């Protein structure tokens, strides 16, 4: 019963998000703003992946391409690669942003597939329990993405610091928690 309620809340959140995105399509265009511009970005991130018996972290690089769809709405697709060992993510995002001078804060929803859940452990302690509980976690996840310190400079470049993604895997939602900090990300508008 509780799980059904939680699923309903989640679906309600996603539905409201979609409705608000549709609502933004009625905004008037800001003077001089260009739609359909493409942006590429390169970033360096730190991921914490937490499950009941495991608390693992890794660093990695990410590369993404975004397209401005409306004034404040952007769609983005990208990949991440953990450095050691080599594990990967693929993701898509819908982002809503604001403009205050050079400050470009943004927030959005991200979903993707990730292999960065199964970590080798340096000790055998709880290894078998961890393997038993991670067996059916699944690869797809949902998270929110925020860019509180994103700044545009020289019209075509954007520097973003300390972006934060907080989420969980779809299967057994809530059993794992993904917290990712993008330490630095540089974007260029093509």
């Amino acid at each position: 019963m509780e799980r059904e309620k939680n699923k309903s809340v989640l679906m309600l959140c996603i539905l409201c998000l979609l409705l608000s995105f549709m609502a933004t399509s009625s905004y008037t265009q800001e003077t001089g703003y260009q739609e359909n511009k493409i942006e590429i970005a390169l970033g360096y991130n730190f991921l914490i992946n937490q499950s009941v018996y495991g608390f693992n972290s890794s660093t990695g690089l990410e590369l993404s391409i975004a397209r401005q769809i409306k004034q404040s709405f952007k769609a983005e697709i990208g990949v991440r690669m953990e450095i050691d060992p080599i594990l990967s993510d693929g993701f898509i995002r819908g982002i809503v942003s604001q403009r205050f001078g050079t400050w470009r804060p943004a927030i959005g929803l991200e979903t993707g597939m990730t292999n960065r859940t199964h970590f080798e452990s340096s000790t055998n302690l709880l290894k078998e329990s961890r393997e038993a509980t991670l067996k059916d976690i699944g690869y797809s996840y949902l998270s929110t993405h925020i860019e509180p310190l994103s700044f545009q400079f020289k019209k075509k470049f954007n520097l973003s610091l300390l972006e934060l993604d907080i989420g969980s895997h779809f299967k057994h939602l809530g059993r794992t928690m993904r917290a990712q900090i993008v330490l630095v990300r540089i974007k260029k508008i093509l």
Partner: protein
Amino acid sequence: MKLRFIAIVLMLISCSKEIPEINNHTKVLEFAQSIKTENLYPLVEKIYQTHINDIPISNEGFPSDDLFPSDHLTRSAAVGFVAKELRDMGYQVDTVICGNQPPIAYNIVAEIKGVANPNSVILVGCHLDAFYGGADDNTTAVAAMLEIARAARAFSFNKTIRFVAFDLEEFGSLGSTRYIEEGHAKDVSAALVMDLIGYSSNQAGSQKDVMGIKMPSVGDYLIVVGNENSAELTQQIVSFSHTYNISKPLGILAPHDGVYFMSSVFMRSDHGLLWYKGLPAVFFSDGANFRNPHYHKPTDRPETIHQDFLKNNTKLIAASLAILAEIQL
């Protein structure tokens, strides 16, 4: 004053559930009172001595530290002791060997067949391995299980009761994880698991909060932990104890199935994987390192155990078993 008024208003507009009733109250109480508490402490001393006189097993792959002195883990003599005690009571005892790489786990199993519903198995578990002598962790629970097994021979239950002394819990619940993963627990419908049930303190501040969860600061209670699957049983246990003044339990319900980060501390024993698999299980503990200063230390000796606390807890666990296994009139 205004704040209290608003708090009362807030409380009144929310709601709570009724506690489910227990069948055969009197028989449950009779079973709890049949526990010979004078047997418990001598058992603790005997099992403690078997650990002290035993040779630690190899801790290869399990590096040692302060909270985890893996180079001082003993279990071999305890395996033999528990098996012998159960055989002497008249049980058919099986040694379920689990794992295909070292360290191999030796779980000791004995059963009482249920009369009306023998295919439904209630598992009563505790781990028999220990660091150093391990008086509280975990000879108290082993002693309790053996005494409950002795008392249970004189009663009939609708469901089958399976007593399991798990091996290598201190190495990350290896015995129970393998027992479950290898399919030996397919017929288990519910479980009661005990881990450290003998230490209490009446000093303020003796009980620490547990991962952000506020606990009463005087550590004189038995922690009885369930999850959403075992919520009713946990409520019944606390209610029964309250009604008949058996012990002093603190009932805790972990969120949903309990398999989350903040509630992971409540999964730190042999019931953890049962929760993960969706089986109702209730866990009994005195709070481990959040209360007992002798946790995983050579000072975990029988003289640090509080005998009345252990006796009352054993009676309550016996009552819990009688409720769960549906004791017959």
